[in-house]
């Protein structure tokens, strides 16, 4: 019996407890523990590189085995989780220093990591669900540690999570009642004898849960608030990895637990694809489109990133739901790379908030002169996010586009490409309003963020470059995942795609090499010409008038207001009203639930018990409705 999975799983929990206890002694002890255990987790995860499926049966409940398993898909998620967590831990050290309950924060942070690892390592439904629930709650507690509005945002978040969790719980109960087992490997074969309606219902129940976590379009309402109000390191975790857990769950269930064979025959094919996939593709397409368009209209740095998360996760789902070698590989690559650059961007914005105290874009500007490292990090981050070569956002998008072309899904291709164009708009808005433009006078004494905050930024920025130039590095692991789920693995080279792997070939290093050459030429030409003279930002064209520090000479509020004008009629027709109706509904729902709950943990536990009892009674009494 190999206990290493358990060791790996327990490491973050132990780290959390030690960090908590260490924090009672001295903060440096807390830091030391936090850092060491995050690093240890990575090392332990990395130790699994290349190994085959490894599983551990650690108990038995309700007559079913409880299993932990490590496979290449889990490994991919686990390495992303542990990496982002290490960065986040480092970033938290200065960021959270002054906040109350900092010990509890680390405790929760590590618990979140532990539960996430638990989710990806779970080998049975019960383990999966327990960790999933813990994950939701711990992340809720982390979210409400942010700004004043965060408790409201967290409330919205947890309500949505509960809705999803309830659905999953019902699904789990149903499955258990039919199969008497929680173990993943059994489910597929046992379900195959069930009626199609049952399978579809169970899948839908689980899918709702995952789609809420992944914030796919109609179920995204919790996301912008929660992401923007949470503390920045938490935001980056939420966006970087927590959302991927939702995507992971979805596709783990589709590809592995249920398996494509189960759906065959019971789900009709549309446009040559299983209906499930078509629905998912279009939901992803909607997410891309509306996530992008809504991100363009935001006035708050973190909200831009939050909405862009919806859009970018849309690409992941789109890629994965294409169910082709290229698409799945592209989706998984996007999953890895999105974690990198989105966390990076949240870190940079977190640093800005740390130094200036605001995330309101109209109050920022001109910080490039004060915070060059942050600027470069954000520049790399936005280039990656926008998918511009040669950084790491390019390859996955290119793969997804190619997969779409292979499928001849031209409309989705258009949506995806427009989403790409739209992303230029909001990323430019982000970097412009924060770093470019006029520096407001009040930020004259702003300094670069502390070194501990710079390290995660620099590390992730380097990763965007490395993974961008050499997409082959992450693709190696992804090809293994594809093997694991029984798909033809992607063919690739270190720097791109050879003949035959896609409709066309790609060599990112050659592209970037040429770019560097062209840049070198242009730069040499530039410096060989007469020298430039630095002028003050107030020495500026103002139609002949003089600009002073009292002039409000910074265009940042309503940056794309004309876009708002264009979109207004469309939003009025569709998303806006649905959205407001939906939030209204959620608020009403929340109000009802608030009467029952005060928000305490014990009430929630009793709630779960009640719900379970109800479902149990329902299933036992009228269980033959299926």
């Amino acid at each position, binding site marked *: 019996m190999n206990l290493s999975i358990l060791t790996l799983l327990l490491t973050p929990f132990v780290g959390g407890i030690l960090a908590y206890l260490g924090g009672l002694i001295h903060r440096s002890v807390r830091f030391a523990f936090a850092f060491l255990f995050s690093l240890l987790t990575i090392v332990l995860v990395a130790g699994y590189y290349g190994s085959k499926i490894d599983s551990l049966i650690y108990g038995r409940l309700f007559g079913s085995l409880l299993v932990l398993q490590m496979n290449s898909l889990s490994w991919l998620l686990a390495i992303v989780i542990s990496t982002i967590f290490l960065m986040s831990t480092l970033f938290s050290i200065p960021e959270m220093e002054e906040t109350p309950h900092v010990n509890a924060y680390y405790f929760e942070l590590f618990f979140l990591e532990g539960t996430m690892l638990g989710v990806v390592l779970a080998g049975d439904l019960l383990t999966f669900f327990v960790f999933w629930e813990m994950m939701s709650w711990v992340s809720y507690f982390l979210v409400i540690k942010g700004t004043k509005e965060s408790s409201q945002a967290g409330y919205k978040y947890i309500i949505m999570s509960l809705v999803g969790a309830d659905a999953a719980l019902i699904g789990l109960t149903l499955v258990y009642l039919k199969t008497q087992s929680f173990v993943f490997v059994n489910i597929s074969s046992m379900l195959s004898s069930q009626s199609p309606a049952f399978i579809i219902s169970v899948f839908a129940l689980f899918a709702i849960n995952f789609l809420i976590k992944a914030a796919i379009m109609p179920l995204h309402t919790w996301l912008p608030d929660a992401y923007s109000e949470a503390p920045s390191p938490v935001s980056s975790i939420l966006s970087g990895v927590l959302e991927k857990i939702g995507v992971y769950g979805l596709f783990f269930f589709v590809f592995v637990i249920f398996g494509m064979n189960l759906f065959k025959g019971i789900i009709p094919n549309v446009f040559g694809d299983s209906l499930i996939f078509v629905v998912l593709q279009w939901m992803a397409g909607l997410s891309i489109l509306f996530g992008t368009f809504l991100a363009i209209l935001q006035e708050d740095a973190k909200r831009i990133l939050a909405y862009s998360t919806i859009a970018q996760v849309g690409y992941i789902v789109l890629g994965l739901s294409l169910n082709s070698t290229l698409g799945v590989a592209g989706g998984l690559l996007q999953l890895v790379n999105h974690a990198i650059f989105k966390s990076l961007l949240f870190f940079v914005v977190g640093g800005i908030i740390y130094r200036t105290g605001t995330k*309101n874009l*109209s*109050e920022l500007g001109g910080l490039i002169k004060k915070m060059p490292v942050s600027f470069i990090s954000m520049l790399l981050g936005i280039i990656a996010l926008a998918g511009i070569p040669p950084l790491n956002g390019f390859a996955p998008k290119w793969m997804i586009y190619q997969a779409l072309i292979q499928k001849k899904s031209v409309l989705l291709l258009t949506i995806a490409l427009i989403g790409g164009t739209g992303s230029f708009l909001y990323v430019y808005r982000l970097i412009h309003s924060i770093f470019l433009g006029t520096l407001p006078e009040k930020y004259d004494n702003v300094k670069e963020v502390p070194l501990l905050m710079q390290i995660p930024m620099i590390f992730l920025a380097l990763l965007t470059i490395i993974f961008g130039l050499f997409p082959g590095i992450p693709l190696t692991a992804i090809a293994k995942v594809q093997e694991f789920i029984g798909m033809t693995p992607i063919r690739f080279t270190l720097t791109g795609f050879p003949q035959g792997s896609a409709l066309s070939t790609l060599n990112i290093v050659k592209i970037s090499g040429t770019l560097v050459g062209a840049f070198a030429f242009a730069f040499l030409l530039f410096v060989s010409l007469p020298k430039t003279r630095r002028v003050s930002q107030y020495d500026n064209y*103002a*139609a*002949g*008038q003089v600009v002073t520090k009292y*002039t*409000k*000479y*910074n*265009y*940042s*509020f*309503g*940056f794309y*207001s*004309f876009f*708002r*004008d264009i979109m207004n009629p469309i939003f009025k027709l569709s998303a806006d009203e649905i959205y407001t109706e939906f939030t209204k509904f959620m608020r009403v729902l929340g109000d009802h639930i608030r009467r029952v709950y005060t928000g305490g943990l014990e009430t929630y536990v009793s709630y779960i018990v009640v719900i379970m009892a109800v479902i149990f009674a329902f299933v036992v009494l009228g269980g033959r409705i299926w």
Partner: protein
Amino acid sequence: MTKEYELNIGPNHPGIPGNFSLHLELEGDTIVKANGDSGYLHRAFGKLMEHRLYLQNVALIPRICVIEPDINEAVYAMAIEELMGVKIPERAKYIRTIILEAARVNAYLFGLGIFAAATLGLYTLMQWAVGDRDYMIDLFASLTGARIYHMFIWPGGVRRDLPPKFEEDILDWVKFIKDKLPDYDAVFFKNSMFLHRTKGLATITKEEALSMGVTGPNLKATGVAQDVRKDEPYAAYPYLDFEIPTMTEGDAWARTIIRRLELELSLNLIEQAVKKMPKGPVWTKMPNPFKWYVPRGDAYARVESSGGEYGFYFVSDGGAKPYRVYVRGASMPHMYPLAEKLLIGQKLSDAPQILGSLNICPPEIDR
């Protein structure tokens, strides 16, 4: 939270007609506050005229408004004639009418050309219109030798008779411009993009316009047929047959089309005046110009300029120099408060267009 930002349009800006500044506060793309900033062309004409003899002032006053300088001469002459009780010869009346109308056509051609170029970016109309205007400038130059400031109209009539062949030349020119009008229509007035951008833009109602003292094409565009040429006819206008064009829309499009119609009207008036012009003297003999003494009193003389009502409030104390002159430019109420009000809530891209459609002439404001 700072939502607004400031933006200056002008003085050094191609979107502004002349040396004038518009200080905007915007929120996103929408103007929330607009302040005009005048005074860049302030030369204090009132004060300068107090220092000069009546004759010297003839040379000074055209320089008030450079786009249409002749109205200044006419209005100055009319004020003095009213105070002195001088009647001017018939031929002089016709010559004045021709000069004034030709100057108006020039002003419209120039203004429309600049409007097309400086607000909509349609440089072709400007090239054509300003080029075509130049042939009239040549004719003006044949009057006194000056292209812009002709100083041809003066108290008592005009300085000398028209040069030979002038009448034929000006008819030729009128025909030339009339032939060009379809071209202008095609490229500008009927251009779909122009219609698209100006229809419904910055609409003024009749009541608003009247209460704010708006005159000229801007008022006619709201449906009021108010024109000094009809209401208080001067020069040879009583003898000519014409109708004041009006539109009812009151938006930027109507204001522009009104100027197009006025342009045509002026061309017709020139033709009529040239044909009806009698022979005879052109100047009522007045005493030695250096010793003009205008009787004590005040007068308000006004003419219709290309922008609207243009007048001098003229006070004499019986001396050799004017005691006080106040120049009433048509653009003053068009800018303050009309434009400042119209601009609020509009988009930045429309700001130059609104100013252009109001035909604001900064020197009239600054003087």
